[in-house]
């Protein structure tokens, strides 16, 4: 006896598999919560903090302070205070609210992570696709380039580039924050595309021998169209997985650069910078390093879980 069943699609299957991957669901939930908190949270939190500061007798300079001015507000009655109602994440050596700083820093850290990921994926996909599709000399050149980049020591080169070109980029763009942001994204993204390129190339190498590509070639479809319309959608799975993993490593890279003191200006509290500043006080005020460190940990862990889940879900052999 036949019952009516909705047709199963590739994406539907993937989603079903993804839902069964509990760590991935957990990661998704945490990530969404973090993103929501960082994007929308400040609107509520700046009111709350402003109210708390008024109540504690250290009112902010402006009537309706935004997050940017609150992170620089000194509450001298709360120097190195542990988490409390007024300062849920505690306060630092100048009485600045750590939660406000974490929220502000989270925006930058996540923005850098996502932008660097997009850059790495775009670059990696383009290079991998060209190398994989055309093969031959082009493939050789591009893959040796990839090997070259893989052989470069990432952190020292990154530090060198940021150090050498920061002034120039900032000068060109006229704004510190934008300039440094762009440079960080370019540098982090520019050193993270290699694995994506290899994955995409490998996928393309196997796909391009399939019948449907032969058919497309025989029909005279142009090469770019074949790459974009026929090959890329089939390589979507591995790319998405690489992308998620890339976000995590980009956040770590940004934290490392900020931790080492190059990168954003010293009053921009990215998560990495907060950990650096807090590391001075591990004994007197451990929360200063633990909270931002925990946020980096949680974010990267969640993203990696999601990546794992996607890998399993998008693999049709499972």
């Amino acid at each position, binding site marked *: 006896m036949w019952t009516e069943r909705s047709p199963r699609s590739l994406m539907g299957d993937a989603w079903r598999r993804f839902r069964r991957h*509990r*760590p991935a669901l957990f990661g998704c939930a945490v990530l969404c919560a973090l993103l929501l908190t960082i994007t929308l949270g400040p609107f509520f939190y700046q009111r709350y903090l402003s109210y708390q500061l008024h109540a504690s007798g250290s009112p902010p300079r402006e009537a309706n302070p935004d997050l940017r001015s609150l992170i*620089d507000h000194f509450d001298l009655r709360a120097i190195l205070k542990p988490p409390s109602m007024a300062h849920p994440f505690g306060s630092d050596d100048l009485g600045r609210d750590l939660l406000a700083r974490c929220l502000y820093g989270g925006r930058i850290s996540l923005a850098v992570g996502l932008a660097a990921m997009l850059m790495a994926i775009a670059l990696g996909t383009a290079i991998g696709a060209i190398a994989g599709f055309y093969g031959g000399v082009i493939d050789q050149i591009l893959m040796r380039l990839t090997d070259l980049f893989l052989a470069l020591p990432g952190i020292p080169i990154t530090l060198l580039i940021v150090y050498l070109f920061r002034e120039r980029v900032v*000068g060109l763009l006229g704004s510190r924050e934008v300039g440094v942001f762009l440079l960080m994204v370019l540098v982090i993204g520019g050193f993270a595309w290699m694995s994506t390129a290899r994955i995409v190339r490998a996928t393309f190498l196997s796909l391009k021998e399939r019948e449907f590509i032969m058919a497309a070639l025989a029909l005279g479809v142009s090469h770019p169209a074949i790459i974009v319309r026929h090959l890329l959608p089939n390589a979507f799975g591995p790319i998405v997985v690489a992308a998620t993993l890339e976000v995590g490593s980009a956040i770590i890279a940004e934290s490392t650069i900020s931790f080492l003191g190059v990168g954003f200006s*010293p009053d921009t509290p990215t998560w990495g910078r907060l950990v650096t500043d807090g590391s*001075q006080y591990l*004994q007197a005020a*451990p929360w200063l390093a633990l909270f931002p460190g925990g946020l980096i940990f949680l974010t990267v862990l969640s993203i990696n879980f999601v990546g794992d889940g996607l890998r399993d879900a998008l693999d049709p052999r499972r």
Partner: protein
Amino acid sequence: MLRKRIWTLMTVGMLAATLLSACGGNSAPMPTTAPTTAPTAAAGTAVVEPTAIPAESPTPVASANSGTLKILYSQAITVLNPYLSSGSKDLDGATIILEPLAHYNQDDELVPALAAEIPSLDNGGIAADYRSITWKLKSDVLWSDGTPFSADDVVFTWKYCTDEATGCVWTSLFANVEQIEALDATTVKITWKQPTPNPFTTFVSRSGLILQQAQFANCIGANAMQDTNCQAANLAPIGTNAYKVKEFRPGDMVIYEKNPNYRDAANTYFDLVEIKGGGDPASAARAVCETGEADFTGNLQVTKAVLEPILAAGMCDTVAGGSAGVERINFNFANPDPALGEQRSEPDQPNPILNDLRVRQAIAKAIDRQMIAEQLFGSSGVPTCNISVIPQAYTSTSLTCERDVEGAKALLDAAGWLMPEGGKVRERDGQPLRLSFQTNINALRQSEQAIIKSNLADVGIQVDLEAYDSSVFFGSAADNEHTMHQFFADLQMYSNRPMDYGLDSYFQAWICAEVNARENQWTKANDLRYCNADYDALYNQFVSEFDPSKRAELAKQLNDFLINDAVVIPLINRLTPNAKAKNLDGPTHSSFDSMFWNIATWKRVP
């Protein structure tokens, strides 16, 4: 299988997180200082003492194997030729090998080093017309290579530094020298161009160390930094002090060993002296005061909240006295706009904002020194209104510098910098009142920067903070462009102190002739590019005055001139910046010399 592992991982992670947060929760309600540190202090002493005691040799005589003196320094030494670097780190590192004619001690008195006695009017060393000074040298001094030291070496050192192509950074100390001659092997006569009341600027303290002629004879001029042999000599100068270089890794550490030819080698206590540079001050303080890994650390520039619990561990003493320098903010009188390219921060490009006295005064008034001192320095610094705080007799008492926000706002209004309706940053002709502010990377300085940024925001000035690695910021301008010498910013913060009792070279840092520029490779002392004929006149009067009481009066006037003209903003007089292990005897404070001026006599005591 994989899934199972992930779950295990997660459980472990959660457990760890719970544990961590539990720890945080427990320690959280505690008062921050004493109780949390007490257990670590006890643990620290318990661990270290047993190892420390056997290390001290039971024989009281300083002989045989006396071990290593471990010193931590906030910056790493990069060169040991003291004439090619103005960094305190390099001068201090060189002081362990080389000697001047005389050192300043902890009481700001001169003590002979290579000199046999201190010249004075009474013993005829200083000429009655103040035109010359004659130094009698010790006769039994050998260089560490065994050759005898003589007056010719002193003369050579002068010739070495005053050759323009050498690139010597201390030419200013020889500016007044007309002639230096060796009357005989142990007598040096310095003749001045102008009679000088303070003849102890040349060849005295860590900025007057004597080089060996034999080693540097071929290094005068351009060879100094280019010739291979000279480069090697710059890294391992032959000296007369108690120690000589054993191993030098520039930018990291120097290991010195006993100099067997030192005149008092029998009483040199340590076999090795090791200076390790580059760690952060907090861990250096911990290494000396909590774990006992090191014996001495200079420049404890960490915030009060960090330092106090570390000192409470009780394994170290702070070395107190005088002034370790005045933490100050320098205004850039030249325009640091990067758009100017090569002309950036050149003296002929006036700073469009800071050349207005009212703006500078407003900035000085807006800054809350009291808060910086209380929140950040604690017992290691007091607010000061004066840029010259040592010697006491020369210190002005007439100035006050209370924070005055309303006064600052009024001055900015008067200068035409008005607050737009509903804005945060003042503007003039559509240009925002925006300044860049640089310093070195150091948690204390970043906290100071944050306070100052907030102070200035209160009066409508926007500040862009910038911080560079210490070795870059204090490094030589030849290597990079983020140094304090180039000063490619509107404001910069560091601390500095007079090198000699006479204060001549200290006040020289604001005269026109010392203005830093591209053409002198930024090797001069006036990084502010301040040039004021009235100040120069007062300075010339000061250096040509001979009567001590009148000199003191003029020093006060120079100080007041700089403050009233808002050339520089003194913030904090820094105290007790060094820490030594309790069993180390010898380190003293010296306001006018290296902290290692008497390193030959340092020893361990039970």
